């Protein structure tokens, strides 16, 4: 079984990435289950985002099995209340934070409050990491240090230029997990598995923006053993999200 720990459903940027688009791509790449988030931050300029997110989560619950709510930390207390409120939803199981889209660093106080809150709920926090000045793995490391009770997913393992920093920070803080999508280097995944252990690396595709076939080829190219693949492609996400 393959669980994709990072996919998107949303209508934004002229894209219509509906649950059906995601399901079609999952079928193409033989992915069994996916975790989704949105492109828009909540709350934000599009007040219908949350409603669509919940609709997407409830439509195919055997395929789209969980969601990370993409929170805008600039809303402060209101954002925390929203997290509290949606935590009752059975399929919302984590936070997504995009420091560039919100222009707030992973280690700024309103973000840290949300990261702590997630920890209290037993939720992981997925951070977009790498390639832009507000999403450096070392900034995410500071957040991980400040919130040791929260599991932090280093999205994209630092991307093009910061995969070494991503692994370095994950090595320093044991509550960091590396997610594999979008970084172009299979070698970064190989190194993450070697240095952190296969229990702390999770497959994600970033579909539909990225193609899951390309992303799975990257896992193949990383040359993992069958046991390592079992953890990276399935068991780690299952355990973290209680699937």
């Amino acid at each position, binding site marked *: 079984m393959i669980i994709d720990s990072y996919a998107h459903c949303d209508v934004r940027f002229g*894209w219509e*990435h509906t649950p059906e*688009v995601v399901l079609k*791509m999952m079928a193409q790449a033989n992915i069994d289950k996916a975790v989704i988030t949105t492109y828009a931050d909540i709350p934000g300029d599009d007040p219908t985002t949350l409603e669509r997110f919940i609709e997407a989560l409830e439509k195919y619950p055997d395929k789209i099995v969980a969601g990370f709510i993409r929170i805008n930390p600039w809303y402060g207390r209101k954002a925390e209340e929203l997290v509290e409120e949606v935590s009752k939803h059975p399929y919302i199981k984590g936070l997504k934070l995009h420091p*560039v889209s919100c222009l707030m660093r992973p280690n700024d106080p309103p973000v840290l409050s949300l990261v702590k809150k997630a920890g209290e709920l037993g939720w992981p926090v997925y951070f*977009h990491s*790498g*390639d*832009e000045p507000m999403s450096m793995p070392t900034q995410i490391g500071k957040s991980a240090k400040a919130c040791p009770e929260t599991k932090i997913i280093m999205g*994209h393992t630092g*991307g*093009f*230029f910061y995969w070494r920093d991503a692994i370095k920070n994950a090595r320093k803080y044991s509550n960091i997990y590396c997610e594999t*999508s*979008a*970084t*172009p*280097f*299979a*070698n970064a995944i190989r190194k993450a598995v070697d240095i952190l252990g296969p229990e702390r690396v999770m497959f994600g595709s*970033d*579909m*539909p*923006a*990225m*193609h*899951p*076939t*390309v992303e799975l*080829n*990257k896992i*193949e*190219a990383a040359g993992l053993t069958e046991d390592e693949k079992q953890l990276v492609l399935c068991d780690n996400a299952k355990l973290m999200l209680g699937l």
Partner: protein
Amino acid sequence: MIDANCNIGASVYGPKQTPDMLLKSMNKYGIKKSVIIPFTPSDFNYEKANNYAASAVRKRPDRFVGFARIDPRHGKRAVREVDRAVKRKKLQGVKLDPFEQGFQITSEIVDRILDKCSRLDIPVLVEAGYPALSLPIQIGEIADMHPDLAIIMAHGGQLAMSGIGIADALDVIKDTKNVYIETSGVPETGAECLVERAVKCVGAERVIFGTNSPMNDPVVEMSRVEVVNISDSEKDTIFAKSIGQLLEIE
């Protein structure tokens, strides 16, 4: 299949690949020809590095085509090196890496290199997508100044996985006739991806397959093109004809 972006030699930054290692990988993955470019060498002797690429091409002209790595900071010596590499060493293009060789692609020291390449009628492959150094919009600027020069924008001008530079890259290829997109590492391989939109905007002839070997894996890089929602003949063009036409090779 032609791979338009392979590195050979030993990089001062760590990676290594001999021409024999590359040949083995080409045979394994069905790549007929590769454009080989010397890594930035630890002695910073670019003449020697370019000779290394040229000698690999001399040994296997059926499999390799060579590009010269040029350091524009060397001023007139760099311009002479372009001339020597092309006329005497039979290399067929120039690679410019603004990060490894330390310059902005729009700076004056680069201008004379671009002029020289334009006069010699050889393409320039630019490591593109570095903030401040070679963002797509900056590639557009040099393309406007050198309308007869073929400029290959490596990695679709991204060098980041967020995709926030894609709109500029598409604008640049639409607004110019002389900029090409090279596909290694491009983000957004999925629905309505960069390569698909580029093909629909300007045609597959302006999109060039490359792997950025040995850092990137050939199978992953091939699949970046294979999964795109375009016709098989457009894919053939990306995999071989675009670069073939530009370098007059098959």
